[in-house]
């Protein structure tokens, strides 16, 4: 596979935690932190999407700025002095994690538990009556499930469905403030909406609020076990584009399909056939029997 090279860019030098880091012009603080080997937590940041900087868990302290800056979207500027582990930055990250974990079910968010531990966050401090976004999962089709009690409103599914990738515009944020949710028009079921079931929203969801129906059902039955799963990347055989599929297999059955984000053509996006059209692989025996 050939990866297209970007034209060379001028380097800018910034200081991250006292250490000089040189990054290409236009890179973000997060890029610079990655270059310096810093592990900054992120949730709403997506490697294939324009940063929305909504979750604020990646905030860092930039010297001379009144407020903290979101590392994921703030561009590195020459001479910038960034502190990733200052008291203010750590405090805000801790509180953001507390606010999120106290209002949203983060049980399927990768690394959430690790960060809560690392920052000493205590989501229970707001008491048993703290408002949450708990609600029944929306199961309105056979392919994927929307469990908005796990939704942190990162906007990634909306962006993936909209003009950044799929251009279907089936979903958007409706309502305002704490009552805001991701919704179709008039909260119609997906089957009545503009959804084309590409599953690119599921691909970018950072919390598991959007999941394959197979995964949702297996989790409900207690049979979901990621440790037993293998991942195999192959090429979709439906058409000539040749998208990469990563098949997640548990007990010799495909349980979910993702796509590598670093693919220079598809950037992790698929269509309904690649994403969900795997049933025929495992229904062979069943149909022969029937």
């Amino acid at each position, binding site marked *: 596979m050939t990866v297209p090279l970007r034209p060379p860019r001028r380097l800018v030098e910034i200081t991250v935690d006292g250490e000089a880091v040189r990054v290409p012009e236009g890179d973000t603080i997060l890029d610079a932190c990655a270059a310096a080997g810093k592990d900054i937590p992120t949730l709403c940041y997506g490697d294939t999407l324009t940063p929305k900087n909504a979750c604020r868990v990646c905030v860092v302290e930039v010297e001379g700025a009144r407020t*903290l800056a979101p590392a994921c979207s703030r561009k590195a500027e020459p001479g910038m002095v960034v502190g990733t582990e200052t008291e203010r930055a750590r405090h805000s990250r801790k509180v*953001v994690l507390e*606010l999120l974990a106290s209002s949203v079910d983060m049980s399927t968010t990768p690394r959430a538990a690790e960060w809560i531990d690392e920052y000493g966050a205590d989501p229970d401090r*707001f008491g048993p009556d703290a408002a949450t976004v708990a609600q029944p999962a929306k199961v309105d089709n056979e392919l994927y499930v929307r469990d908005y009690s796990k939704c942190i409103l990162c906007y990634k599914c909306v962006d993936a469905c909209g003009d950044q990738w799929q251009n279907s515009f089936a979903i958007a*944020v409706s309502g305002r403030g*704490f009552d805001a949710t991701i*919704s179709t*028009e008039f909260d119609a079921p997906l089957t009545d909406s503009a959804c084309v079931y590409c599953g690119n929203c599921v691909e970018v969801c950072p919390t598991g609020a959007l999941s394959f129906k197979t995964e949702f059902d297996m989790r409900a039955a207690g049979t979901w076990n990621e440790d037993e799963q293998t991942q195999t990347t192959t090429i979709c055989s439906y058409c000539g584009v040749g998208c990469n599929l990563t098949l997640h297999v548990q007990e010799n059955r495909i349980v979910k399909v993702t796509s590598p984000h670093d693919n220079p053509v598809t950037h992790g996006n698929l269509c309904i056939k690649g994403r969900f059209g795997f049933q025929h692989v495992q229904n062979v025996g069943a149909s022969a029997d029937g």
Partner: protein
Amino acid sequence: MDLRFRDAEPTAEERAAVDALLGEPETGWEGGARTEDDLRFAAAPAEERRDQLLPALHAVNDRVGWISEGALDYICRRLGVPPAEAYSVATFYSLLSVEPRPPRVLHVCTDLACQARGADKVRRDVEAQLGPAGTSWQPSPCLGVCERAPAALALQAGEHPTATVYGDADFSDPSSFDWISPEEDTPDVPGVFGDDPVRAAVPQAGDPRLVLLRRVGVVDPASLDDYRATGGYAALRRAFELGPGGVIREVLEAGLVGRGGAAFPTGRKWEATARQFDRPHYLVCNADESEPGTFKDRVVMEGDPYALVEAMTVAGYATGCARGYLYIRGEYPRATRRLEHAIATARARGLLGEDILGQGFAFDIEIRRGAGAYICGEETAIFNSIEGYRGEPRSKPPFPVEKGLFGKPTVVNNVETLVNVLPILEQGAAAYAAVGTGGSTGTKLFCVSGTVQRPGLYELPFGATLGDLLALAGGATGALRAVLLGGAAGAFVRGDELDIPLTFEGTRAAGATLGSGVILVLDDTVELPPFLLRIAEFFRDESCGQCVPCRVGTVRQEEALHRLTKRRSAGDLVLLREVGQAMRDASICGLGQTAWNAVESAIDRLGVFAEEAS
């Protein structure tokens, strides 16, 4: 764009409302009657008109009272907007409804200034007569009628929508609800503002020392001739003499800073916009005055609308804008009507349009109505709202002077800021700067409300103290307990801190803020904990929901205050402080960053919750 619609049909009334705004649809593809021609080719709406989304939603909401699936679908076809996005925009604004409701809805202000003056009783009376809130009435954030608190606003949908503002509202008599019967349209119900509410709002009206308010309540706000006879359009002529650069120099030398709350130097903003190569440049006048306790821009717009038209023209000339948007909050029907009239008159008389005063300068103003969202007063949220998106703030950088409205260089100024430009040009920068203090030049409008003898809009030179202003307003009605400076996003000061100078630097030194000029007086009849709760409730309601610290933080702040009003707890005070600090440090915009200010100052300065905490 390949859009999918759900084929809900609009009613004839809904269709007529949208067509009155957008014109008849040209093809079946845009929602018109399908003809054979339509089947020969597929056509998208002719041009990008996303920015007409909010006006179209308003049109239906004004006509029917709410927006049905059929109406939304039709709007989307006409504008080429995805239904999910139009729904997301419609549900963002509190004045728009996507659920059926009666054509007449009463909005009862329960916000700070009204709460201090009996809003709870009004609310109980209304509830007793109309039942639970939600359909025919709803509690409302500040309606900007604080000088006549408690206030209410009735909005009547129909072919000719009407709005009725109630000052000193009293709904204890059941007959005050006679308008509920749909046949009767009685826009002039008792309790409505008299003929000259503007004069009543300005206790100093007619005082020769007034600068910004000199015409308010004195000159007929509808008459362009009266405006010109009292010095109107002298500033624009002077501007044409000076040239754009000269105007900016005057504004810079005058030391004018923004009056909306942030106090940014206006001249620097203008200079930065003017020198951008990218074209066109836009001017946005921020009249989405929604800070609880603020009504200054409303009074200026109602009492001296031509001044704003002239000031916007000057600003457009200085910064190279051919178009200015005047974004007025939806709760200001009278100001909107006055400005519509003033703009139309100015246009007819050659003071707006292609060739203003024969100087070859082209400039025009378009009014955009807000629809009930405090956040749209944020300088980048206002762009999203005008463009037809949810009024969520954008992240900065890039700043508006580089990429603002429609991605173009934009200068955003508050109403009061703009009208200050007129005296600067009339008197000259030096004379203007001679008034006030070194750091705060000119005069300032103060919105005095709450438990005070003579609430109203006052104009004083910078440098007067809080005590001077309160003396002018007749003092508190009872024993003065505290004053909220700057509104819900501001800070409390104690009743014994009356020597604080009302300047940007003076209030800052005192650990407070001038904000938008709110002086909300609280005497000993006002219970502070419920007042703080209302502040917290305001921010929870008005948070756009984009960033976590504000979306969840404002909820947790309100919950902790609820607990504290019942039982003092040191743990909850620590929790408030920690959440408050994160909101201040990590929120995207000023709403979240200031949502904890007033509560913090009440705890630290007034000692609320202190007595029994352990």
